[in-house]
């Protein structure tokens, strides 16, 4: 990944004038800002950052977990999937029972290096087979309920009730429901090079200040003004971070948005919660899924592996954990179109230097399926969320965030 944006002296000065004024005020110092890193550090201190960062990676569309981590040791797998079942010789065997899809060299390495935890059978009671409904359940951590805010958003509200700017970053074309927060306005952008208000010299005084406004009754207007403030707080930081980012690491063909996350971490953004996705329902493989699915997994695996290497390069690999999920798995038997239909329980992955690699949770049975030929879940997915919340980020009251007690996994090294 390369970006070719060059940064001139004058635009750097403008950046300090433009973007950093918000930072000065928030930092409460009123001191002239000298370097980017210091300002960010001041902000970070206010946000009580101990350095730990969670990155959530969503595989949208319903990833076929059975063809991701293939249970080649189970004959039932090949019975259910006479055509789509991946033969042992084509997979990357990791133990006597499982192997990764052929292109997932990155995940294989992470697993063998002991940095990849596989959590089996993740799902919930009364599963929905609708992408949008099930994804909303995962986003809100509230299956079969109408929770309005996302679990990442609620986590931010709980961890940083003062809502310092730039606490949540969601790289994407859209804001995910997962980051929807009562107090925070998440920083949402797609292309960092375009995350800027382009302006002529004489327009600066107006475009670089936020006008006064009195009482606002129109909720849509209020929302737009809040968003404008968040954009002002973040855009200069993001753009500078991206312009400085030059990595030699090969992220592969898709790369996802993970290089952008590294750029921000390297620049000292005070962000503790990052949210990204493999977009546009890509994993919805109803027909002829073999080649397509393998390719998607290769891209995702390349990107996550490169991300960890990139974090090593900037010496922040100990501070970051990636959690990977999908809104559901797929039907156990293949369909006649060499694809698979919407299913239920699925794998989750937790990746990081501080992760104790291995298998967690109970592997769902391939012979005792539900009435619709689906896996019966063995792990409530909120157990994994709870593990991230208290085990990794150290926020103790996961109970009230998740509206229940969910036993965590002992998945992190000291």
């Amino acid at each position, binding site marked *: 990944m390369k970006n070719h944006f060059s940064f001139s002296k004058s635009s750097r000065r403008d950046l300090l004038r433009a973007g950093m004024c918000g930072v000065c005020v928030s930092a409460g110092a009123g001191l002239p800002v000298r370097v980017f890193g210091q300002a960010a550090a001041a902000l970070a201190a206010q946000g009580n950052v101990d350095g730990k960062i969670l990155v959530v990676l969503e595989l949208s569309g319903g990833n076929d977990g059975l063809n991701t981590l293939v249970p080649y040791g189970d004959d039932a797998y090949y019975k259910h999937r006479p055509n789509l079942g991946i033969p042992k010789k084509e997979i990357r065997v990791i133990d006597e029972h499982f192997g990764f899809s052929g*292109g997932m060299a990155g995940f294989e390495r992470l697993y063998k290096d002991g940095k990849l935890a596989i959590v089996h059978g993740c799902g919930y009671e009364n599963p929905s087979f*609708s992408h949008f409904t099930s994804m909303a359940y995962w986003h809100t951590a509230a299956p079969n309920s109408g929770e309005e805010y996302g679990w990442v958003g609620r986590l931010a509200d709980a961890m940083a009730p003062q809502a310092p700017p730039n606490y949540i970053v969601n790289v994407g074309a859209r804001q995910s429901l997962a980051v929807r927060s009562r107090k925070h306005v998440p920083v949402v952008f797609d292309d960092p090079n375009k995350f800027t*208000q382009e302006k002529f010299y004489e327009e600066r005084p107006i475009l670089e200040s936020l006008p006064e406004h009195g009482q606002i009754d129109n909720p*849509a207007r209020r929302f737009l003004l809040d*968003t404008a403030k968040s954009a002002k707080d*973040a855009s200069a930081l993001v753009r500078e971070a991206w312009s400085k980012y030059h990595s030699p690491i090969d992220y592969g063909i898709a790369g996802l948005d993970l290089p952008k996350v590294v750029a921000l971490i390297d620049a000292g953004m005070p962000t503790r919660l990052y949210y990204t996705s493999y977009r546009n329902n890509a994993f919805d493989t109803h027909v002829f899924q073999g080649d*397509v699915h393998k390719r998607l997994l290769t891209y995702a695996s390349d990107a996550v592996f490169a991300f960890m290497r990139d974090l090593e390069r900037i010496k922040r690999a100990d501070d970051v954990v990636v959690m990977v999920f999908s809104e559901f798995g797929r039907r156990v038997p293949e369909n006649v179109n060499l694809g698979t239909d*919407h299913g239920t329980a699925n794998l989750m992955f937790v990746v990081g230097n501080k992760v104790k690699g291995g298998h967690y949770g109970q592997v769902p049975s391939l012979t005792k399926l539900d009435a619709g030929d689906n896996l019966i879940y063995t792990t409530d997915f909120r157990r994994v969320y709870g593990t991230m919340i208290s085990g990794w980020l150290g926020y103790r009251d996961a109970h009230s965030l998740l509206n229940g007690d969910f036993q965590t996994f002992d998945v992190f090294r000291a």
Partner: protein
Amino acid sequence: MLRNLPIGLVLVAVAAGALAQANGPASWQNDLTPIGAKDWNYDFAEHLLQRVGFGGTPEEIQALAKLTPQQAVARMVRFEGAPAANLAPFDEDAIHDPGLEPFPPSRPAVTDLAKQKGEALGIKVKPTGNRRLQPVVDEFFYWLRASALETNRVAYWWANRMVDSPRPLQEKMALFWHGHFVSNEAKVRDYRKLLAQLELFQTQGLGNFKDLTVAVAQGPAMLSFLDAGVNVKGASNENFAREIMELFTMGVGNYTEKDIREAARAFTGWNFEDLKFVVNKDQHDDGEKTFLGRTGRFDGVNVIDIIMQQPVTADFIAGKIYRYFVRQDLSPELQKKLGAVLRENKYEIKPLLEAIFLSRDFYSPASVGTRIYSPVELAVSTYKKLGLKSIPGVPDFNSVTGALGQQLFAPPTVAGWAQGQAWITPGLLLERANFVRDVLFPDIGFLPPDRYTGGGEVRRVAQRVREGMDISTATQDETKDGERAESNKNADRDEEFNTRYGSFRGSQLAIERVTPIPRETAQVNLSRTVRDAKLKTTAEVVDYFIHRFMSVPPSTDARQKLVAFLDRDLGTSDISVAQTYMEQSLRLVLHLIMSQPEYQLG
């Protein structure tokens, strides 16, 4: 009252009084009673034109304001008294070849077919020599690129109708259906199917919802997008049946998984051959099904009939139409009332729209100036309010709307585009202002994306091939330090064909055969607008622009800063002094106005 005065004076008079747009009393919210003729005014006419279409110039708004509300709505919905729409059909390029049908689902499927049969896509495999399958792979990528480029031309054609049609509701409703009965080019990969579907939306989008649902379900775009063609007897594919119920008609929670499986059986055998709908009788499951409590040997049309008999279907679709045209928050009571209107009218769309557009609720404070424009609406209405009759080629309409999250024929998922606040993120809010800048100050370094196509990789390969490199070397990816990603290793593999070279050749062939999009810039003359409106001071100019271009004005503080800016940039607050040199300053101040967060509301 104000009706007989020149428009410029009307606007100044309105602006001088209060910048806030007039709307009805708060008690009008949720009230479906039609508004009275005495309530009707210029601001209501502006609101109507904005919501029913894509806004308009003061002259167009004034023409509506002169009618009664009933006449205005009849003109917009039933085209009574509207000028005839003489809009040219889409001018198709001759880029499709019958040999391309049926187009295989992926590049590996094409090369497998070629290996088996010795030909694919109408192209024979070379008998001997190097890269024997290369011409087949080139043809595969040719059609992918050509269809995508032609789809961009269709999008331009459609956007031009939005900006120029005297019947804007036709296009606004087609846009609704496009986001409702979703399909996209990336999956369908055939502009002809998408064009046929769009023409259906344009011609029947204001007709009957049931008829439209059947026509869409039997259209090749939808059949292809939702894999209906592979739903066969004995092994049904649920995608089509599920989305028809969940997204198109009833909404989630109103049927069981069993209903989905039974409906899928009823749809078995539905398929398309090229652009034709066909039912493959031997693949159709003619057995008995039990669906939503009814039992019979149902086919797909029977299933749609039964869906239409569910009260929830009318509520669902009426509510979605209301949210699209009026506002996001809709009480369950109001939704039921709207559903009843649709049911009473046997799913005819026009009576529902008339009820909505005439209602007091539509003109209540909860509805007026509270809706965030979609990207397509933002772009089209910006052009319309500037008085343009066609969509400029610079900036590229498809790139702009794509960057803002609503490229035509490219909805992100089968759920279409989320509306309302989902259109806005911090990044997108800034990009919206940047779009306006690109209109008022076109980039003289603009490169047309339909010529400079295919991304950096294609251009890199093209350059190296021109330099005389062999294909293997030319298609190597950029050198990285150390370890290479698995996907890049695979892409470089030299086989009987080279994918990257095919991608380059396909792009080259497509560019040759698809007509370029014209690239004129917007013809804007703000000085003339200011002169015609007889504006005398910078404050009048700012107020006129605010009223002409914004539905919700910015704060008093913002307005004062804008006036001060214009004073400073012109060196005077007296327009008569600045007559000869004011264009640049007027564009700057308009850019600033359109950069206000409130510009997104209408």
